């Protein structure tokens, strides 16, 4: 079989399945980034808190989830979630093993890891916000939530974009590890194709190339986003 039919979109081609795998990879990573944003914001808030127990909890979270292998964390969410679900099912009279949906387990695992990295990004970005602006907002009588929405979030996001771009790339690569749970994302699809056609080299090269395309595209998007949020500053510098 030539590579054109192998990776084409014909009846025997794997092109369509690989593209679906690519989309699943993007979806897992996207969900993970959103989950991570919530965890990351909470952890950043905890780490900046004056209360010692909050700082300890925040530090514990970022240390553990940045220091333990991603694969182990994926196992934790997949097997841990499944045994919790199975014993819950047992309680309601259902026997046997109930697996967590692999997409959910994967997005949660990669999300919690990404949250630990995002916490550091948000914390550094928050530090970069001018104290005077927060004081000014307080002086004109803005309550906490309004201050957060109008003053803190827009500025933190601007300073955080380069860091968030890095975290996205990291999560994109972590999402390949979710393939061990059997979720048919890009890596798993390539494995299946390689196994059934014995064209290992071709399929893994194709997967690597598709990941590189994703990386290059996301670099471009991050650059555009940076230029867009920085547009009010460019003029002043010029």
């Amino acid at each position, binding site marked *: 079989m030539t590579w054109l039919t192998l990776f084409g979109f014909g009846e025997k081609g794997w092109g369509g399945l690989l593209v679906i795998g690519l989309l699943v990879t993007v979806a897992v990573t996207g969900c993970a980034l959103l989950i991570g944003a919530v965890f990351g914001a909470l952890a950043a808030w905890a780490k900046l808190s004056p209360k010692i127990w909050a700082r300890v909890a925040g530090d514990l979270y970022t*240390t*553990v989830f940045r*220091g*333990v*292998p*991603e*694969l*182990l964390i994926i*196992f*934790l969410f997949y*097997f*841990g979630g499944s*045994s919790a679900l199975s*014993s819950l099912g047992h309680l309601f009279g259902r026997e046997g093993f109930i697996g967590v949906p692999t997409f959910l387990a994967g997005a949660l695992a990669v999300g919690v890891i990404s949250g630990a990295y995002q916490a550091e990004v948000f914390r550094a970005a928050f530090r970069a916000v001018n104290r005077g602006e927060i004081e000014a907002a307080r002086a004109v009588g803005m309550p906490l939530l309004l201050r957060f929405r109008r003053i803190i979030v827009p500025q933190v996001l601007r300073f955080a974009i380069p860091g968030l771009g890095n975290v996205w*790339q990291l999560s*994109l*690569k*972590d999402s*390949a*590890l979710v*393939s*061990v749970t059997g979720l048919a994302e890009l*890596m798993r699809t*390539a*494995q299946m194709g*390689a196994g059934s056609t*014995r*064209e*290992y*080299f071709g399929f*893994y*090269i194709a*997967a*690597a190339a598709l*990941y*590189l395309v994703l*990386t*290059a595209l996301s670099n471009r998007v991050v650059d555009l986003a940076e230029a867009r949020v920085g547009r009010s500053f460019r003029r002043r510098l010029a």
Partner: protein
Amino acid sequence: MTGMLDLPFLLDVMGRLLAVLPMTLALFILSISLGAVLALTLTWMRVSGIGILDRVARAYVFVFRGSPLLVQMFLIYYGLGQFPAVRHSVAWPVLREPFACAVISLGLCTAAYSAEIFRGALLAVGDREVEAARACGMSGFLLFRRIIFPIALRAALPAYSTEMILMVKSTSLASILTVSEMTGVAQKLIAQTYRTMEIFLCAALIYLAINFVVARLVGLLEYRLSRHSRRAPVLAQVLHE
């Protein structure tokens, strides 16, 4: 599920995980050494000023940083073995072994990340220091050994220790190539007992301990190398006055 702290079980798990600690450490040390040598070569290519070498090194860094390590491992272990030419070559006894393939792919991957760190550190060496050394008549290898290398090494250490910790974590991927290291053993234990949380905590504790030791060792080296920028001890100050 007991829900209580089952100490004998935890000790048993700890014992089984620690039994394969040498494998995890071997993967780490061999791949970080291979990676460092490759990274120095890549850095040299980037700053050589020779267009083609620079471009090859750039492409290398882009490819190995832009794709997941798992794909690279599979490409080397399963992908290369597909070709009869590889299977009949002298490299086959090495490429047939999961352990060797894991070390090679870990090393190739960390080389790309480390090369960028080393290049950044090299750029951090001040022009003034280099000029001063040149004015004293140093050049070539002597200039590199005495001036550029020590300054660049110190500048590279903080980022390099982060990369080393990423590599400690990455050794876990070798379990997918059937190398029996810590994460693989932890997964097997989880599949046998379904006591995910306890096994996870044991393994996490060991990985965090390794990271801590690595970070402290690099920190110690950094401390030793920045003796000149520390304040003099109080006694010395008193004597000076």
